[in-house]
């Protein structure tokens, strides 16, 4: 940073006659007048000399309050203890009320009290930024916020979603009249989190900003302040959340993708029944998230050969889907690269040079003031576009693979004799516990 030459403190003459004071006044006024009219041509470090005060005046101190958010150490403690408590409530106590109270606590603490930042959902971006850019330092808090919920998911399922995540908590709090979403719709919409995750990772890798934070619908509610469009988005999500429980978690949350994978492998997981399932059917409609898998019918609807043939066809479809994804990615080169501010600026500057815009905007004015040659900006923008060119293909291939996996997962018939929570999508919210008539 540019440091300014500063005259030493003190040294103000303690005495001075009235006449010298008057003389100084006239001189100062003259200097001021001179610069007021010709000021823009002067390029001195300081236009006006620092005055020497006759009255022994010393200037007041500058108020530099320290960061108020210094409770980050506590955040780690609270995160780990709420995760532990949530695991105990879900796996041992099995009481919806306790889980819900912990959810409310998390909403108030992580959301309204700590203003929803940094959260685990957003921490994915910091981790990606840390991996891509060796100079990007990731603080310990963020590392813990990223890894702790995943480790807990590997051990106990998605207890983080159940009672710790503030974004999940606020949706859980408004979900008063949940309706069932048709499973087919649910399956289709559940591709979006993968797309969102892929886009966010691409954006971070290219240095185009943290889109998960930018489009976080509830952080504005926690802070009681957001842009108009984000208020609308957050408000819509909350209103929708009354009927479609946890719309963000199910159809958008990018961190939920990782939790889903980890939870599928979980060592222990919440069960609907405390002992053995008696197939009474009572819990079947209790889950607003379509996360209860019904027992498979005793007679198989198709022969083994038919199933194998379909699976083979789907596996053959994989390369087609991936190629299709890459193709769609290729089509999206321009809009994707426009996520990056430098590309947008370069296009704006080029447009202005070509006379496409009547006026300059704030960005182009700031760029022109910085005296950077246009060619440098264009070269930088081209390099970024290049990077997006590779990234979008990976993104397309990833989405193709995801769709393929989803198709395979709906086509495979797994033998189940009991009602079981789907380990990947179950949020361990505990709604189904009270529907089970079996006593421990």
């Amino acid at each position, binding site marked *: 940073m540019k440091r300014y030459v*500063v005259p030493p403190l003190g040294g103000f003459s303690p005495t001075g006659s009235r006449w010298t004071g008057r003389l100084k006044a006239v001189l100062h006024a003259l200097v001021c007048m001179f610069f007021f009219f010709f000021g823009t041509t002067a390029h001195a470090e300081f236009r006006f000399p620092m005055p020497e005060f006759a009255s022994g005046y010393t200037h007041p101190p500058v108020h*530099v309050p320290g960061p108020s958010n210094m409770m980050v150490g506590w955040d780690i403690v609270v995160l780990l203890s709420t995760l532990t408590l949530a695991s105990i409530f879900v796996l041992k106590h099995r009481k919806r009320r306790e889980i819900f109270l912990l959810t409310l606590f998390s909403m108030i603490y992580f959301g309204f009290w700590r203003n929803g930042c940094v959260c685990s959902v957003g921490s994915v971006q910091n981790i990606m930024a840390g991996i891509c850019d060796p100079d990007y330092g990731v603080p310990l808090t963020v590392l813990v916020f990223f890894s702790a919920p995943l480790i807990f998911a590997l051990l106990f399922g998605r207890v983080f979603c159940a009672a710790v995540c503030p974004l999940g908590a606020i949706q859980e709090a408004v979900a008063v009249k949940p309706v069932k979403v048709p499973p087919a719709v649910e399956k289709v919409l559940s591709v979006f989190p993968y797309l969102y995750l892929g886009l966010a990772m691409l954006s971070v890798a290219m240095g185009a900003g943290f889109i998960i934070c930018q489009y976080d619908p509830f952080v504005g509610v926690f802070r009681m302040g957001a842009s108009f469009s984000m208020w609308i988005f957050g408000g819509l999500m909350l209103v929708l959340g009354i009927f479609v429980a946890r719309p963000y978690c199910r159809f958008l949350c990018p961190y939920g993708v990782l939790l889903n994978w980890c939870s599928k492998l979980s060592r222990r997981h919440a069960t609907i029944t405390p002992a053995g399932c008696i197939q009474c059917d009572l819990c079947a409609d209790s889950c607003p998230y379509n996360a209860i898998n019904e027992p498979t019918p005793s007679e198989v609807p198709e022969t083994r050969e038919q199933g194998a043939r379909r699976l083979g066809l789907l596996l053959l479809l994989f390369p087609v889907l991936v190629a299709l994804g890459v193709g769609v990615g290729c089509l999206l080169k321009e809009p994707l690269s426009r996520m990056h501010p430098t590309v947008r600026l370069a296009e704006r500057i080029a447009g202005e040079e070509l006379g496409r815009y009547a006026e300059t905007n704030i960005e182009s004015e700031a760029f022109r003031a910085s005296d950077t040659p246009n060619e440098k900006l264009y070269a930088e923008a081209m390099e970024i576009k290049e990077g997006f060119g590779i990234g979008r293909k990976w993104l397309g291939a990833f989405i193709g693979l995801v769709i393929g996996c989803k198709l395979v997962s709906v086509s495979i018939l797994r033998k189940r004799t009991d009602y079981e929570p789907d380990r990947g999508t179950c949020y361990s919210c505990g709604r189904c516990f009270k529907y089970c008539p079996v006593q421990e």
Partner: protein
Amino acid sequence: MNKNTKSGRRDFVRGAAAVLIGGAVLSAGRSRSPRLVWQIDPAKCTQCGRCATHCVLAPSAVKCFHSYSICGYCDLCGGYLRPDAKNRNTGAENQLCPTAALQRKFIEMPYYQYTINEDLCIGCGKCVKGCSVFGNGSLYMQVRHDRCVNCNECAIARACPSDAFKRVPASDPYLLKSDQERRIV
């Protein structure tokens, strides 16, 4: 037997996932940083006015700072008076600041002290522009850390046209223009 091999495979995949998470964390955390907070580099700031409008807080966490030790204490202050001011006095019609947050006090002939009323300042940067165009640049914008909630990605940094926002260590969270300033926390 079948069940055992299945659970063994599951354990293995779980272990692999744990190693993957650990690897991601280690790789991301290889350059550990101290706790960082957002701050404005006054040398880059162009006073576009977005600090007042793009902060997640209302009013913004960015406010004007005054380094007295580089101030000229002018009567004719480019930060205080509108360019088309009729008179050099404290009349509201003469003031550049829309909220009258920049306050003027007579010290001695011909010097006036300019103080920022932090409660009134909205961080619009009008006075900063005036002071840098006609003055020593002793007025400049800074993120006030008693207000800043330190978002993961600062909303103003995203909107800043001159890339003036950067992260600085929380132990030294201000980029004051002068080292000679007496500071109170």
